[in-house]
């Protein structure tokens, strides 16, 4: 499924919001790319800029938002420079979105069949009868039971989990290349969450779409994502493959996030948390924005922003701790345990590979 061909590139994106209090620098130089067929998770606290990033990809920024720099390349065009009309053609056709709260994201006065069929009618000019037939197919695909009888029901006649399935059906009806899922399971019960995540994985395989998965729940990321980008205060601070982020994190903020996530191995009475609150983006601090909350902060962190240091070909982190001259620090216990696990996994993997090779060779002989 995955390939190295990237279909979306966000380059040095900077977005400000003009408010009465002043200019809020919500996105401060964010770059990433999305590869065909992969799931990229963007993780971070509330207010870290995850949602603003995706809105700018959809061209759905609020009126007081100002693009202060950067570009978003999609099929050789800059989304940020598109006209309203071009954006309308993009939305719901090539890039679709699933929202956080299924209880409020469906029009309460429109039959759901019509709501699912709408993007087809708008983008492909499909006639209503045909569009409804396709909507029915999509309803079956997303697992709505008794779809034939329910196509003319209204949203209030469905449960939260079913409504989220409907929202997914709306997003996928045009087989978009990119699906943006903005915390799609946050508002759901834990049991329903798992169902929706399974469904998304299944559909991704069926219709081969790339997913940008926004969440603050690392537990969800582990099972969903191929790659993870960790955002803090309007910047990406670390990105890498899901294994790299989970088992070999380098940025103290990622350490904090992972340590504050309970696991089966968590013992003790207290769940660690990251002290303090994110900085005020009206006036972002000089240097590393995370420094005031970072118990591993160096002197340079308060003076100069750390650049990205390469950990592996796929793994980068923006922390001075990776600088060759930086003092060696010991990460939290939990992280050390994770790294140990990762090393073991790597070893197993290479052994398996070797084993595999040997087998192959034997077969050839």
């Amino acid at each position: 499924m995955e390939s190295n061909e990237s279909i979306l590139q966000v380059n040095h994106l900077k977005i400000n919001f003009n408010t009465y209090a002043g200019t809020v620098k919500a996105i401060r130089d964010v770059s990433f790319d999305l590869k065909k067929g992969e799931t990229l998770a963007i993780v971070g606290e509330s207010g870290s800029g995850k949602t603003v990033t995706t809105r700018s990809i959809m061209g759905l920024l609020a009126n007081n938002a100002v693009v202060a720099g950067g570009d978003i390349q999609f099929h050789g065009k800059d989304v940020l420079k598109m006209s309203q009309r071009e954006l309308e053609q993009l939305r719901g056709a090539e890039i679709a979105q699933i929202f956080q709260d299924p209880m409020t994201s469906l029009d309460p006065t429109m039959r759901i069949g019509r709501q699912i069929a709408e993007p087809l009618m708008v983008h492909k000019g499909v006639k209503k009868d045909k569009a409804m037939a396709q909507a029915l197919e999509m309803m079956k695909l997303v697992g709505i039971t008794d779809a034939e009888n329910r196509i003319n029901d209204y949203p209030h006649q469905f449960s939260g989990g079913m409504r989220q399935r409907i929202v997914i059906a709306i997003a996928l009806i045009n087989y978009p290349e990119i699906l943006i899922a903005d915390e799609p399971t946050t508002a759901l019960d834990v049991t329903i969450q798992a169902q929706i995540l399974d469904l998304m994985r299944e559909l991704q395989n069926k219709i081969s779409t790339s997913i940008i998965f926004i969440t603050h729940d690392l537990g969800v990321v582990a099972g969903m994502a191929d790659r993870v980008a960790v955002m803090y205060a309007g910047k990406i601070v670390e990105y890498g493959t899901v294994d790299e982020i989970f088992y070999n994190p380098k940025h103290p903020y990622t350490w904090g996030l992972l340590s504050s996530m309970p696991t089966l191995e968590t013992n003790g009475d207290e769940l660690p948390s990251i002290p303090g609150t994110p900085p005020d983006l009206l006036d972002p601090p000089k240097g590393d924005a995370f420094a005031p909350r970072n118990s591993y902060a160096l002197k340079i962190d308060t003076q100069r922003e750390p650049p990205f240091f390469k950990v592996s070909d796929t793994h980068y982190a923006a922390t001075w701790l990776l600088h060759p001259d930086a003092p060696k620090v010991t990460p939290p216990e939990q992280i050390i345990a994770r790294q140990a696990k990762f090393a073991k996994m790597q070893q197993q993997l290479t052994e398996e590979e070797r084993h595999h090779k040997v087998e192959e060779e034997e077969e050839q002989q």
Partner: protein
Amino acid sequence: MAKYLIKRIFYLLLTLFIVITVTFFMMKLLPGTPLQNQQKLSPSQQHLILKQYGLTKPVWQQYLIYVSGVFHFNFGTSFQFSDQPVSYLISSRIGPSLQLGVQAMILGVIPGIVVGALGAIRKNTWVDATTTIVSILGISIPSFVLAVLLQYYIGLKLGWLPIADWGGFSYTILPTIALAASPFADTARFIRTEMVDVLNSDYIELARAKGLSKWGVIYHHALRNSLIPVVTIVGPLAVNIMTGSMVIENIFSVPGIGDQFVKSILTNDYPTIMAVTIVYSVMLMVVLLITDILYGIIDPRIRITGESN
């Protein structure tokens, strides 16, 4: 649906009965008799006439007689215009009142929706400011002041339309405008507030994410949802127009029942007061019934016959 309607009509009749009772006794508390200004008649002659009309009996007996009459659709004869049955009086005068009321309702509500929606869509621009000013004026200028202004400027100064009287559509225009101003302003204000909320809701965001154009989003999703609460104010607006019509019909000399109502109260014309009250009550209750049915049509969540879940 049929079951629901039957139930509603039963309640409607019950309410009507209570209205009749309360109005009857309140009316009897009014000072004076229908013969107040007949000084030429001697007290014994007056007594004879009152007795002839049954007005010397105890009030509770008069009430029972009246109610039994109503059950037989006998509303009595007017004291004011001797020998004219009240039912004839009303039926000959209800036409102009209904016409004015319906015209005012249409002229108030539909432009109100359009103007209010425009204000919300162009929030915080000059369009919004203008519509807000217009609707504040509509609410704060009393209809009778507007009526006189219209008569003076459009009727007298410009001479475009007749000032008063009744006789064809052109005669209805000024009183309709005077009556419609306040419902127009109420609707516009209400729709604006509601639509601003709706336009900020998640399903509008989703509609935009589907790639609908701005006007597509408004037409297919925002408008209908903004209309739901407006349906609730249709009842009060109808009351507004009915009470307004009493004054407006007087100012424009429209031969309607509003005008008749005022006159009948001034002359203690008991049967007419009662009959007009009944007519107004029935009209209002029918409007409320229609509103409730409309509600279900616009908002599937409160549809009366749930298509079962």
